[in-house]
């Protein structure tokens, strides 16, 4: 297995696990408060939409000329990676609140309990579960498609995503509670560094640049982006930034 393939698996697995934890919290809150069958129906419908999206767009993307694909995918990954990394840096520095699964679970349960009850299929439970899985899953589908298409390994990326979901579901069933102890921000930090690294690498290659050492440049590039990100965290924690407010979610 090559370095880029391992990076693909790690990136997709971590990104999918983080998003699955967040979606699991919402589905657990709605299912346990309202109606499990309706909530699971919503999950199934969203997974179907995501599978169709990946199944339809994956082969179409791999047919694009390699330079066009690399510059487009590189640019998109870079924009996307900078968003993930920026938020993870702000959270690591304490400038943005960490995602609190227990608070999210309590909020969802409260909202679910207030909505009017329904007979048969509970539209509230269906809609909230569908929306949660679709919205969290879209980010993963985007990563699966971009990473997978560029390496012509969409099935490998999709498998990594499926394994991550299975692991989160198994952990959730075992815990019978929101997975509040999952280190979400370090995982998002790692995904942000990896996505940004590949965005830079493929974007520059697609734009016509040649990397010294070819794919061997990926590791030092990732380390440089990680080092710069950690310096930004340290800088934000420094005395000059104390007293700054918290960035909104």
């Amino acid at each position, binding site marked *: 297995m090559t370095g880029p393939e391992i990076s693909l698996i790690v990136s997709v697995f971590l990104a999918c696990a983080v998003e699955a934890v967040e979606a699991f919290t919402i589905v657990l809150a709605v299912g346990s408060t309202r109606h499990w069958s309706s909530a699971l129906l919503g999950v199934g419908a969203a997974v179907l939409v995501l599978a169709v999206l990946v199944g339809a767009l994956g082969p179409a993307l791999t047919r694009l000329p390699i330079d066009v694909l690399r*510059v487009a995918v*590189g*640019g*998109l990954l*870079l*924009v*996307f990676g*900078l*968003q993930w*990394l*920026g938020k993870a*840096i*702000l959270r690591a520095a304490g*400038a943005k609140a960490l995602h609190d699964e227990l608070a999210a679970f309590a909020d969802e349960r409260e909202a679910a309990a207030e909505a009017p009850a329904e007979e048969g299929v509970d539209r509230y439970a269906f809609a909230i579960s569908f929306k949660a899985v679709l919205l969290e899953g*879209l980010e993963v589908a*985007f990563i699966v498609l971009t990473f997978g298409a560029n390496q012509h390994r969409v099935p490998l990326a999709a498998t990594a995503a499926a394994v991550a979901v299975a692991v989160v579901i198994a952990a959730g069933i075992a815990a019978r509670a929101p997975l509040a102890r999952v280190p979400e921000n370090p995982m998002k930090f790692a995904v942000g560094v990896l996505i*940004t690294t590949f*965005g*830079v690498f493929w*974007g*520059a290659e*697609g*734009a*016509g*640049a*040649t*990397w*010294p050492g070819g794919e061997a*440049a990926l590791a030092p*590039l990732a380390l*440089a*982006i990680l080092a*710069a*990100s950690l310096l*930004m965290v340290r800088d*934000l924690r420094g005395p000059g*930034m104390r*007293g*700054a*407010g*918290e*960035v*909104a979610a």
Partner: protein
Amino acid sequence: MIARLGRGVLEFVVGDDWRVAAAVVVALLATAGLAGLGLAAWWLLPLATVAILHFAIRGAVSTTRPR
């Protein structure tokens, strides 16, 4: 409906700060320009990326600072 879908996709990809996306496009174009001139261009995008990240974070934090 198609316009709403397009807007949703754009918001999803561009995210909270459109300037980050614009800066990435400019950096890619500059890389292509250097490569087109036959010059070494690989160094430009990593430097631009770190600069974009730095300014995006500073911008996010400065908007919350008490005056």
